[in-house]
């Protein structure tokens, strides 16, 4: 498990190389990249963060995912600070021997990251700024996993 909470950007290929420097390549790799939406009048996305808490929470989320699915490697990067539309926000890489495990675990991790990790997004538009509110659907998506 490798978790980074930082301002710098990431390059997917380098992160896969980093994983494979630790261990032989796995057969199935699921990757999710979240980016700042390109939206009319959106100038910047500012992400506030409580880094120590975010890292703790992400560790717990990954631990829960590892209890449910057979995973080989998990690598997560979540950025904070001031980002332009189109820039990377988050990267989740899960690897396993079978694709079902890495797909499900990846989606599980993203669902919990959305509502349980200590990050807060503020949208800076041409004419206003707005703290993003937690979505009801993000909470229900997360709860769906608990009913399994």
């Amino acid at each position: 498990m490798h978790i980074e909470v930082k301002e710098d950007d990431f390059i997917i290929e380098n992160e896969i190389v980093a994983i494979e420097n630790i261990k032989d390549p796995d057969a199935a790799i699921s990757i999710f990249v979240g980016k700042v939406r390109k939206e009319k009048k959106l100038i910047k996305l500012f992400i506030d963060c409580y880094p120590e808490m975010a890292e703790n929470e992400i560790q717990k989320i990954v631990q829960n995912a590892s209890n449910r699915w057979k995973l080989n490697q998990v690598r997560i990067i979540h950025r904070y600070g001031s980002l332009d539309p189109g820039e990377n926000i988050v990267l989740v890489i899960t690897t396993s021997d079978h694709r079902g495990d890495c797909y499900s675990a990846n989606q599980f991790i993203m669902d919990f990251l959305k509502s349980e990790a200590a990050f807060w997004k503020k949208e800076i538009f041409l004419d206003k700024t707005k703290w993003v509110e937690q979505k009801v659907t993000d909470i229900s998506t997360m709860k769906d996993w608990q009913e399994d």
Partner: protein
Amino acid sequence: MKLKYFAWVAEIIEKREEEIELPDHVKTIDDLMNWLSDKNDGYRIAFNDKKKIKYAINQTLSKEYDSISRNDEVAFFPPMTGG
């Protein structure tokens, strides 16, 4: 005691963190919010709607009546919107 504030909570309180002397009668997160709210409008507005605020003791999400002590780091923030 170290206090931290994030997102719009930090904006309203106009601080990202501060050190306070915890009074003896302030024993829970709820006590702390009430005590701070008496200090000025910033805190009062931030803590006004209890549904919109979350708190962590030592980086762990906590409940309103969880106990706090001098050496804890307590943080206040809105529901998370990462990912």
